[in-house]
């Protein structure tokens, strides 16, 4: 059989994509998840604050996941856990996708589908990627590993802790380990601003008197068998350590919360174009990658701050994937390549580092298009403008924009209706004129 849609990953993005695809008419949907249960990283995010946008209430991660799992099972959508996808390929003539997966119960299995949604999420940046010198003692964990150990396995990985990086998981773990009896000495952040949400700085650090050291980094890890301490130095504007500012912190544990990277090994093998900025596939307004009929959403596409926005984005991707599958099925293997023209590349200046989607084809727009982006530094008193062929069609005042908080612009369908021949879409961030 050929599935309408196969969703790679059963985390928040995969669950929302599958559910929305079902709503859009797909019936043969398969979700493949490598962990033993659906829900992805939400299962270990036991803190609250999820779902304010989606469900209008504050849920914990596992509760948020369960809402979607219940929706999925309620619709009778097929899923397989403990199943690792090894390879995805797309026939260039028929556009039929082949997904190769392995599991303990089914062995090696090959599935076919008209459309695929990539929803593999992201992975933590590791110590190896940071090049911190020193021995390799026990006691160095990524914040997410520590989170799993404490919240799922029930182990406390250390008693005296320093955290490098101020990403949200590190901040959340500063609180969690403090509550479980550990002493968190400091959170060191290389940049002059935090990478985490304000709310987490206040409720995870300030509430417990944990200092946030901005423009600081770990310059030495001491200990051979186990971490015995770290040296933290202040850094200058060039982000290089300033000699003479070294300070020793006696600790047994170092947590790394230094960024998340979209997990795109499968996407790269498949041949999707990857953005060097986001680390995720380049997509159109339909969240379609450069491989026709392969869609992407959630943290595999670009790392989000809030799961609610992952769900929203993935639902849009799922609906578009369902539409693609229906169309391809109708054409019985004779896809209209004309339809797959991805359109205009969104350009930007004055602050954004990237946009998602990267392309919009005005002729394909059905419904509002959300353009999300992040800025590269803290910007105050700005106006964000959307220019169609140089004409401002949307203008939004922003008091402050920070790299740690994703921005979004809602482009209404009507904007494109009279602009089918559009040549340029530009997002311009300008200083507010006084």
């Amino acid at each position, binding site marked *: 059989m050929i599935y309408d849609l196969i969703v790679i990953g059963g985390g928040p993005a995969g669950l929302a994509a599958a559910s929305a695809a079902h709503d859009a008419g797909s019936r043969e949907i398969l979700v493949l998840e490598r962990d*033993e*249960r659906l829900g992805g990283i939400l*299962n270990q995010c*036991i*803190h*609250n604050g999820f779902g304010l946008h989606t469900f209008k209430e*504050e*849920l*914990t*991660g*596992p*509760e948020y996941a*369960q809402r979607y799992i219940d929706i999925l099972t309620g619709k009778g959508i097929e899923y397989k856990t403990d199943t690792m996808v090894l390879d995805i390929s797309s026939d260039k003539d028929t556009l039929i996708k082949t997904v190769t997966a392995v599991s303990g119960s089914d062995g090696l299995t090959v599935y076919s589908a008209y459309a695929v949604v990539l929803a593999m999420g992201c992975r933590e940046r590791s110590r190896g990627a940071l090049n911190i010198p020193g021995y390799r003692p026990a006691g160095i964990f990524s914040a997410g590993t520590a989170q799993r150990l*404490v*919240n*799922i*396995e*029930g182990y406390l990985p250390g008693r005296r802790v320093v955290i490098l990086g101020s990403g949200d998981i590190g901040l959340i773990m500063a609180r969690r380990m403090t*509550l*479980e009896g550990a002493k968190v000495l400091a959170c060191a952040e290389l940049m002059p601003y935090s990478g985490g*949400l*304000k*709310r987490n*700085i*206040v*409720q995870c650090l*300030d*509430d417990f008197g944990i200092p946030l050291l901005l423009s600081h980094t770990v310059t030495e890890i001491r200990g051979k068998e186990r971490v015995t301490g770290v040296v933290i130095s202040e850094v200058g504007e060039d982000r290089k350590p300033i000699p003479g500012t070294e300070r020793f912190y006696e600790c047994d544990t170092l947590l790394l919360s230094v960024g998340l990277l979209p997990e795109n090994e499968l996407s790269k093998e498949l041949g999707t174009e990857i953005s060097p900025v986001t680390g995720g596939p380049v997509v159109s307004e339909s969240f379609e990658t450069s491989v026709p009929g392969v869609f992407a959403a959630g943290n595999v596409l670009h790392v989000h701050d809030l799961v609610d926005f992952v769900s929203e984005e993935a639902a849009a991707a799922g609906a578009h994937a369902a539409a693609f599958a229906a169309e391809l099925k109708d054409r019985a293997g004779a896809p209209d390549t004309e339809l797959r023209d991805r359109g205009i590349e969104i350009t930007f200046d004055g602050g954004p580092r990237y946009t998602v989607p990267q392309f919009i084809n005005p002729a394909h727009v059905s419904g509002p298009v959300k353009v999300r982006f992040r800025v590269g530094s803290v910007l105050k008193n700005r106006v964000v403008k959307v220019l169609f062929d140089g004409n401002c069609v949307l203008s939004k005042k922003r*008091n*402050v*924009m*920070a790299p*740690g*908080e994703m921005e979004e612009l809602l482009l209404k369908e009507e904007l494109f209706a009279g602009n089918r021949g559009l040549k340029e879409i530009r997002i311009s961030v300008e200083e507010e004129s006084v």
Partner: protein
Amino acid sequence: MSELKSGHRVLTCINCPLGCTLDVEIADGEVVRVTGNTCKRGEVYGRKEVTNPTRIVTSSVFVSGSSTGARTVSCKTASDVPKDKIFDVIDAVRGVTVPCPVHIGDVIVPDAAGCGVDVIATKEVF
């Protein structure tokens, strides 16, 4: 904290990325003035945070008899509790083991730390 009767409390507003530094002026245990905020939400937050700061507390406890090999179930206070009770709530759930199956909403510890708030399960564990 509420013990402050007079003087100033300096806070960071959490409502948006602006993160205004709020100065809350207190006299005789009452909030007299909030300054440093750029919008109304900042004032509301400043007043609440000084007079009655509350938090949802989350944790996890051990389970027994899981058919899936699970070791823990996550839990939370069913509503927010006074900020100065956070550690008391954590102490009340520490060392607790609950038998499987556990369902979302099951009471793990009733009336934790005398706050009048139950600690309830937030995950389905079989």
